[in-house]
């Protein structure tokens, strides 16, 4: 694996985005959600990317407009966009959690230069109407983007971008499936996942295809699963590995959930097929599910299948959807004989001393 390229992108995602836009001469199309279909932004002649949260001690531009308690994901996103040094051609917001929904209004109110277009997905998935609503939502997003940018979506580019982006997600899924057990160490897999948010999709595939030949995961360590919101930086995973955690399974916004979407086959209209795939994903986060128990059971099943001895719930502070599911998940894991712990990430790139102690205690208790 070309770990250096991936590490550079993961450690400096903003630098990577600037370089990518400079190289191609195209502005960036930035999405706030790791399940947003970037191929659509590519097809509007933008450099599609998910804007990852960047851990920093302060966010002067973001904090100037966000007075409420919001997760650092939103604070960081607002700060980066409002700072104004990224060549942004379009901001793609999505429905889902309150913070992401509100971010669009915050940016518009703050007078961000680029158009902000909302992808209005159905509130809940898992019902017969949701797939149709998802397809229509993406079609609506494309209509609004067309009006905002004054140009049409290129269908041929969309089909190519769809295929190349899907290949990238398949490769990432493979890395997560083998993580820790003969595959890569988790820190390298999460480095790839963070880099995947910002890298050019072609460059990403080249780097990922080399992945299985790169370093192998350590044999020792307590087998754990990571669940929760975005991973602020691979450093947090490196910190976990350094104290004896062997991450063998994932359920995070940055990880398997971002990579699991597959384009629905047998639908002629590529926009509708992609729209349907947003709803038909095998894994959803807690923001769009009416039946949280099904998701909790899915996490428990994965933990058991991967023989995880504990689940580390890594949440962004003020990330309500994950915070609300934590009590139920803790209880379900306990019933399955799997220990768990909740860690709150905020502005720190790695583990805080206190969180490190808490994880060490968990590992000690497991023995």
């Amino acid at each position, binding site marked *: 694996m070309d770990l250096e390229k991936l590490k550079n992108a993961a450690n400096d995602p903003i630098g990577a985005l600037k370089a990518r836009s400079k190289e191609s001469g195209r502005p960036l199309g930035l999405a706030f959600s790791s399940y947003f279909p970037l191929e659509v932004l590519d097809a509007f002649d933008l450099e599609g990317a998910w804007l990852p949260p960047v851990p920093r001690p302060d966010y002067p531009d973001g904090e100037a407009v966000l007075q409420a308690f919001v997760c650092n994901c939103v604070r960081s996103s607002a700060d980066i966009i409002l700072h104004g040094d990224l060549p942004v051609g379009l901001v793609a917001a999505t429905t889902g959690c309150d913070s992401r929904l509100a971010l669009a209004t915050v940016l518009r109110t703050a007078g961000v230069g680029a158009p902000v277009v909302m992808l209005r997905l159905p509130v809940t998935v898992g019902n017969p109407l949701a797939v149709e609503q998802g397809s229509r939502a993406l079609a609506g997003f494309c209509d609004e983007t067309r009006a905002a940018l004054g140009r049409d979506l290129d269908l041929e580019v969309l089909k190519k971008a769809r295929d190349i982006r899907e290949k990238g997600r398949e490769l990432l899924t493979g890395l997560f499936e083998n993580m820790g057990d003969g595959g890569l160490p988790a820190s390298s897999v999460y480095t790839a996942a963070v880099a995947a948010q910002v890298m050019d999709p072609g460059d990403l595939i080249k780097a990922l295809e080399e992945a299985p030949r790169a370093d192998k995961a350590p044999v020792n360590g307590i087998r754990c699963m990571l669940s929760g919101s975005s991973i602020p930086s691979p450093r947090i995973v490196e910190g976990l590995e350094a104290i004896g955690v062997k991450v063998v399974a994932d359920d995070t916004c940055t990880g398997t959930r971002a990579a699991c979407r597959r384009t629905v086959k047998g639908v002629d209209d590529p926009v509708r097929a992609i729209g349907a795939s947003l709803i038909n994903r095998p894994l959803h986060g807690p923001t769009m599910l009416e039946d949280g128990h099904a998701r909790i059971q899915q996490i428990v099943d994965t933990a058991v299948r991967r023989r995880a001895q504990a689940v580390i719930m890594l949440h962004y502070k003020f990330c309500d959807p994950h915070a609300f599911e934590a009590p139920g998940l803790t209880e379900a894991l306990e019933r399955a004989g799997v220990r768990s712990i909740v860690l*709150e990430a905020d502005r720190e790139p790695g583990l805080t*001393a*206190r969180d490190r102690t808490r994880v060490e*205690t968990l590992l*000690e*208790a497991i023995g």
Partner: protein
Amino acid sequence: MITAGVDCGAKNVKVVVLKDGVVVGKAMASAGMDTEAAVEKAFEAALEESGLSRDSIDKVVSTGAGKDEPQFVDDTVTDVGADARGMHHLYPEVRTVIDVGAEEGRAIRIDANGKVVDFAINEKCAAGAGAFTEAMARALEVKVEEMGELSLKSTQAIPMNAQCAVFAESEVISLVHRKTPKPDMARAIHDAIADRITSMVRRVGIEEKIALTGGVAKNIGFVKSLKEDMETDVIIPDEPDYTGAIGAAFVAADD
């Protein structure tokens, strides 16, 4: 076997020397800005009390916030692990351990073998720990050691927000301006910490018998508030500051 346990707490360093399962020496020193120097000072004092030489110590285990700082230790154990082991030695019948130190409050549920079943630690706020009492004592202009006695003289309960130590200090200042009697304010402060600690204990599940350890266990006002809040009695070791160091020394001996 002779072992030593070093508890590098946020405020004080405690050292215990253990010989064949019996505490033969112990000492405490203020952690200050130089933890290693404080450890040396406490270690020498504990050795002197034990009458043993440094060479006779077979193994040293450290615990506490600064557990990685002393270079001479053989191993480390987390505060939770040390508390559990120490309390299991002191009171084998205890199933719930509450430790309220200077900067951290912990609730630990242990089984009959002293193994940690579950635990909770107060997160990024000092409102459930001893530092909160110190800050409030400053606001009340009384010595922190006097807070316990003072609160026992209270005649009325006053609700207080203890979600944030800084905001709580503002609240105390408001109470001062309203001429609220100091004993009532001292009690409100202890009640607030007790509320937070009790919530944390409920998260791990309250199981009798319950023991309280850590420096704040010496504050009789807080102990009264905690007992009332939990509606049960709590066991307090004679020297609650040393439970972690005792536990670390036993962890060294267990290995």
